[in-house]
């Protein structure tokens, strides 16, 4: 993963989006979405190496696979909501971005409920 290509694509997207904003305002959001898409696709393979490494670590450390997959789910939800809300804020309607962030938080809390119950179970079992 070379950071220079990513920075180049990001700056290219900024320039092209400001250019296209003058000529055709409707295409501003489309260019921003496609630019951020390209950057995200550049990150996918390095992310997969990181996750495979951490899954090996967690299996060696004895942490349950269920726990690790929940953490990954929470990461994915946060990743996508961040992506969508920033695009909404860039295109001018910040209220929709905030609603997406709220929805992401709700989904993350729903995902975290089984972990909390297992945590409380272990705590109560520790008490004499």
């Amino acid at each position, binding site marked *: 993963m070379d950071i220079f290509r990513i920075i*180049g694509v990001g700056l*290219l997207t900024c320039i092209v989006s400001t250019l*296209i904003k003058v000529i055709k305002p409707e295409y501003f959001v*489309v*260019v921003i979405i496609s630019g951020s898409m390209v950057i995200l696709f550049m990150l996918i393979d390095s992310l997969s190496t990181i996750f495979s490494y951490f899954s090996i670590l967690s299996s060696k450390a004895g942490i349950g696979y269920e726990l690790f997959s929940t953490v990954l789910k929470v990461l*994915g939800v946060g990743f996508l909501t961040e992506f969508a809300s920033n695009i909404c804020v860039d295109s001018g309607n910040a209220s929709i971005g905030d609603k997406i962030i709220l929805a992401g938080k709700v989904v993350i809390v729903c995902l975290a409920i089984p972990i909390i119950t297992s945590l409380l179970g272990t705590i109560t079992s520790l008490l004499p």
Partner: protein
Amino acid sequence: MDYNIILKIASIGILTAIVSQVLKNIGKDEIATFVTVAGLILCLLTVVNMISSLFDTVKQLFLIY
């Protein structure tokens, strides 16, 4: 995924702007709006395809079923 998708969408935008301008000058206003809407739909189709492939990769990567 390489970066020329951004330039392609920008070129579609500029092309539709020019074509609709020309059509407006020769008096065909309805066709100009059709060209604008068609260009926008074309760009949205490419972006929707990219979004769907992003969601598929995120599903595989983050184990979200």
